[in-house]
């Protein structure tokens, strides 16, 4: 089985989010970048397939050279090789189109991505990729087994989960549950050393125009101070929620 894992390069979850150039660009100054947490669940599941069922695992990112340390980290976790499509990730559609080319050229059977990236939260790339390639697609995937060409998956739904049967070729957008938190891997020294020697190929993009453009960013309005209610005066809290906030 040939697996491709899509890796998004995103600010660490603790990052303070700031903008520059009149709020038109994200300010990466002082921000630590990591593998998108949702992609980490997918990458870990891919490693499981590699070790238990025999698969090759390629990781791919669409972005400029600054994303390479994140791809190296994925190699250190155990992916076999990496591809970077050398272009600015302007919108989800452009990224999906670039990855679709990689999938076609590399003949991958299974593409694992994350439910969304925690920077722009678009949640578009996997579904668009599936439609462009006309592959089957499971979003919000919390369990995946592959047997030959057949796949059984579960996905999260409102208030529960749904069991699904489908076939390869397949696109999966994963989240926690695909593997458990405790199964996530931190690269060890040996992995990091080996990652330096693994192939990371940079390929040029195909010509695609984006369909959306972000013109500016805003921060949420500053919040007023909390109203504290005495622990002995729970009636007052009920009163405030009923009469002032009007939510009960």
């Amino acid at each position, binding site marked *: 089985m040939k697996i491709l894992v899509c890796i998004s390069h995103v600010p660490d979850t603790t990052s303070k989010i700031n*903008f520059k150039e009149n709020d038109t660009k994200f300010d990466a100054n002082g921000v630590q970048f990591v593998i998108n*947490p949702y992609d980490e669940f997918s990458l870990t599941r891919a490693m499981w397939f590699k070790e238990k069922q025999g698969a090759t695992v390629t990781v791919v990112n669409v972005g400029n050279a600054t994303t390479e340390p994140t791809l190296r980290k994925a190699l250190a976790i155990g992916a076999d090789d990496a591809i970077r499509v050398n272009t600015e990730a302007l919108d989800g559609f452009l990224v*999906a189109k670039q990855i679709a080319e990689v999938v076609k050229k590399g003949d991958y059977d299974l593409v694992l991505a994350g439910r969304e990236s925690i920077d722009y939260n678009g949640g578009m790339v996997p579904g668009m990729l599936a439609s462009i390639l006309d592959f089957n697609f499971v979003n919000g995937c919390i369990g995946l087994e592959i047997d030959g060409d057949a796949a059984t998956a579960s996905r999260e*739904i409102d208030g*529960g989960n749904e*069991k699904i049967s489908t076939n390869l070729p397949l696109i999966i957008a994963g989240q926690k549950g695909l593997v458990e938190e405790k199964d996530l891997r931190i690269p060890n020294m040996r992995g990091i050393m080996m990652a330096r020697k693994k192939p990371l190929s940079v390929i040029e993009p195909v010509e695609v125009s984006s*369909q959306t453009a*972000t013109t500016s960013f805003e921060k949420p309005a500053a919040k007023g101070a*909390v109203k504290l209610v005495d622990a002995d005066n729970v009636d007052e809290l009920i009163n405030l929620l009923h009469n002032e*906030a009007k939510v009960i």
Partner: protein
Amino acid sequence: MSVLVFADSSEGKFKKSAFEVVSYGKKIAEQLGSNVVAVTINVADASELYTYGAEKVVSVSNDQITTFNAKAYASVLKQIASKENASAVIIDSSIDGLYLAPMVAVNLEAGYASNVVALPSSTSPFTVKRKAFSNKAFSNTIISTDVKIIGLAKNSFGVHENPVSGTTESFDAQITDADLGVKSVSVDKATGKVTIADADIVISAGRGLKGPENWGMIEELAEVLGAATACSKPVSDLGWRPHGEHVGQTGKPVASNLYIAIGISGAIQHLAGINASKVKVVINTDPEAPFFKAADYGIVGDAFEVVPTLIEKLKAFKQS
């Protein structure tokens, strides 16, 4: 030209978000000088949507898609969007909506913005405000294609009545075998419980509760308020509560009217996921807990004392 709205349903009943997307679609149609057309799948009587401004409902009945199927639904929406000459398609950014919308976008060669929180600030260029950086910011995004797909964030626009005398037309959708490449085998769902997505009120508890045996009072409080229950990430990682209850940046997003956090410190990743809730209440023993900076109301106190009192007083309040 029309504005197409997907009014999602489950077991023949509209989801609450259906009324919100119709209300929103009605307003966009006014902005664009066109009509709103709502699409329903396997709903016997769609006339409820007239109340929110749907002049026309296109109703699909098809026994191949009795449960949600993203690819087949996307194909249905494409067929109807072409027939109705849609210039915009509105889909809620719920779990199912986020599954469906990117496929509709590719089918229609349309640009797509998800998690949109307001009406377009301009229709030319078509500009929408959407959530970004896990609720830590918003982005203003231009959609430059002829057809636009908008994913509407829950509880961002609200449900607005706007009664019209509408009509319902049935539509015979063509569904191929390829559309059904992903099959639902079974659904495991707690019955009679409010879901986090649907809930107006969410009661959430964290590691401050010490252990799973102490969740009885959380469930009771939720029951008194007709609320859904949720938890912080470590609580689900420890197996105290199911993963489906994990809320925050890497869990489910919450956009309820009221969010009550009990024994939750208010880590940045937790707050990111629940910040879209309108009113936030925190109950925590530690006055320095970061949650107090994000909350509207707070009690510095021991959950094991405050929550039982709150339950008792709320019961009395509900009866009065």
